């Protein structure tokens, strides 16, 4: 009985992990997409930030693809680092007069900025859950 229950529990955990992977990939794709509309303006007005946007889009899409194609926890860890870095950069641009971006100081309600922050937070929460889920599954496998 205990072996069957463990198998069922393992299957349900695996399903939950797969759902979390899909959710994380979706959130990362949406966060990358939210960086596309202001990309041209940034590349013209503050090229260094434009290239950071390009790097974020590339990293977010890469992490999303990694999340979908592998079962390792690497992409989830990368997503946590990436979203934390993006959130920190957003706060820095709103608090400090960075080169060519002094106008952004205090502009917390910029629609694309808010959208990005919401999606990055969502991706961060899902990535943390995915990491925990993977940890629980590892423990369960060891117990068996």
């Amino acid at each position, binding site marked *: *009985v205990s072996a069957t229950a463990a198998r069922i529990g393992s*299957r349900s955990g695996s399903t939950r992990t797969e759902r979390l992977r899909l959710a994380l990939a979706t959130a990362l*794709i949406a966060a990358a997409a939210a960086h*596309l509309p202001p*990309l041209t303006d940034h*590349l013209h007005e503050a090229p260094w930030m434009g290239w950071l946007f390009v790097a974020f889009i590339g990293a977010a*899409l890469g992490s999303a693809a990694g999340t*979908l194609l592998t079962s390792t926890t690497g992409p989830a860890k990368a997503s946590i680092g990436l979203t934390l870095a993006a959130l920190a950069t957003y706060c820095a641009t709103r608090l400090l007069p960075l080169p060519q971006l002094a106008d952004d100081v205090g502009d917390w309600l910029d629609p694309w900025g808010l959208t990005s922050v919401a999606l990055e937070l969502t991706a961060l929460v899902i990535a943390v859950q995915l990491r925990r889920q993977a940890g629980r599954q590892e423990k369960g496998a060891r117990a068996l």
Partner: protein
Amino acid sequence: VTIEAPHQDPVRLELREQSRFVAVRNGLLAVIGVLALLAAAITGHAVAPAAAPAETSADAGFARDMTAHHAQAVQMAEIIRTRTGSAAIRTIATDVSLTQTAQMGIMQGWLSAWGLPYGSTAPRMAWMSDDQDHMAAMTAHQPAPLPSSAAMPGMAKPADIRRLQTLPVTDADRLFLQLMIAHHRGGIQMAAAGEELASRTEVQQLASRIASSQRAEITQMQTLLAAPTRS
């Protein structure tokens, strides 16, 4: 002992779940591909240098012909600035001279940056040849005919320039205002065509600024021309 519901086949359920996961995953991978291409296209478009206008383009023609047009305005303004006894006319002449000299520098800077010569063997105003209807419509709305037989609208004749230097000062002041009003009207026609035909944003913006500033100066000069005395 089984704890699974008898009507549900767990293997079939898992297979169904798996195929659904694979379908969603493939869809998301396709979206990732599309977004990556879109990001690359946007970045490439934003950082690629804009192509320089061609030798025969409206942009180059406008820059060359407006430079020549401005040169005569500066010449007339400099003649009257040194002769006039009217502070108001001296102010306008100085303004025309400084503004249009600066604009000539901008336009020659464009030609230099585009790798094009300042002069051209193409006939004057050839760049406006596609805009004859526009020119005709604008000319029809002019309150007075342009006192110039030159190819560029509003250009003063060499004899008028000589008269500016030789007429008594009060007559020269009056002639300057008449010539400069006509010259500005011609400049506004060229600027309107430039704004419409040029492809570069900076050319369109300068053309727009030229038209609006020359309209304002025409009003000023008409007021001076209508005043019984100028001092």
